[in-house]
């Protein structure tokens, strides 16, 4: 119990800290923060349930008014802003990424976690596009067009999530709860 709470809380803090760490730059100048990478790692490392709880805890603190989103954003305004759909989709994406990692065990972890993060990313975009369509009053196709610039960055982040999860499993096998034995 204590271990679960500590891991959930520290991963929530990790998402916040990754928003502060310098962003990765894409070759053609689109900045990407490591924050959504943190969300994916919550799922692929902690598994569906605990990963989603970690992200929910992070979001709760954002809503309470702490400036934890990348660029020091926070407060209730982010939920109704144009990118609010992405924020609301974060916990669902972590859950889906964790679910895929937990279920798909007969492949190398780097592959299954990478694919899981990509599937989580698709879910995240679904939420993000719907949110943007509502706030900016556009059709879903038009809203999708507005976010295409960020897709290459998130594809790279899915690959990184897979590699990092697999390396973590080698370094701290007990902490990768998505692959731990159910009894543990």
């Amino acid at each position, binding site marked *: *119990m204590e271990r679960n709470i500590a891991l959930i*809380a*520290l991963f929530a803090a*990790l998402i*916040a800290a990754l928003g502060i760490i310098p962003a990765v730059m894409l070759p053609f100048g689109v900045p990407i923060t490591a924050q959504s*990478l943190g969300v994916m790692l919550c799922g692929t490392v902690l598994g569906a349930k605990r990963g989603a709880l970690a992200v929910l805890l992070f979001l709760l603190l954002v809503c309470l008014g702490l400036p934890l989103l990348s660029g020091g954003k926070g407060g209730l305004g982010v939920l*109704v802003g144009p990118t609010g759909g992405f924020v609301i989709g974060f916990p669902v994406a972590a859950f889906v990424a964790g679910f895929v990692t937990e279920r798909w065990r007969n492949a190398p972890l780097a592959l299954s976690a990478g694919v899981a993060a990509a599937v989580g990313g698709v879910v995240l975009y679904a939420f993000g596009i719907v949110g943007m369509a509502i706030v900016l009053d556009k059709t879903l196709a038009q809203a999708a067009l507005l976010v295409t610039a960020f897709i290459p960055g998130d594809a790279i982040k899915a690959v990184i999530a897979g590699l990092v999860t697999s390396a973590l499993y080698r370094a701290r096998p007990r902490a990768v709860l998505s692959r731990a034995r159910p009894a543990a």
Partner: protein
Amino acid sequence: MISLTSPVETWAHGWRAGAKLGALCLATMGLFVLNSVPGQGAAFAVMLALYAAPGAVFFRSGIVRLRILWPFLLVILLWHLVTATPAEGAEIALRLVTAVGLANLVTMTTRLSDMIGVVRWLAAPLRRIGIQTRALELGIALVIRFTPMLAAKGAALSRAWRARSPRRPGWRIVLPFTLIAIDDAEHVAEALKARGGI
């Protein structure tokens, strides 16, 4: 940790956090139902007046927080100029700024402790049916305590990288960073258990 609550004391700081959140929900729903440019313009003016009421310092810090919306406003502007629907564009842009502005206003005038009070109140029914909410309160405290610490450790990692390489620390730093978080979590778990657990 510094929260986004404004240090400028306003009359709204004294209001009940739950009431402010409820009013915000109603106002946001209203904005999305209201389909007229003058109506949205009036709501926008009311929002500006609310920001201006506590004085210039409060007004300025509030407006600075709305600046992050400019790329979206630019997109809306260009879009509706191209499609020749300026009235629609004005309505969407005004609604966007007003909705985010009102939400930020609640955040700026509500202390973190009051917000956590609302969370406790919302969780009360769970306690009544026997679910432990202590874990949630402990989790909130842990994140607030450990985010600045982890961020400092991440900055140290990034400096260590720069001391050894001419290149920028990229994604490679994420692995040791996550390891630090996991090891810290194990220490925290042991410390919690040693103090009698939850």
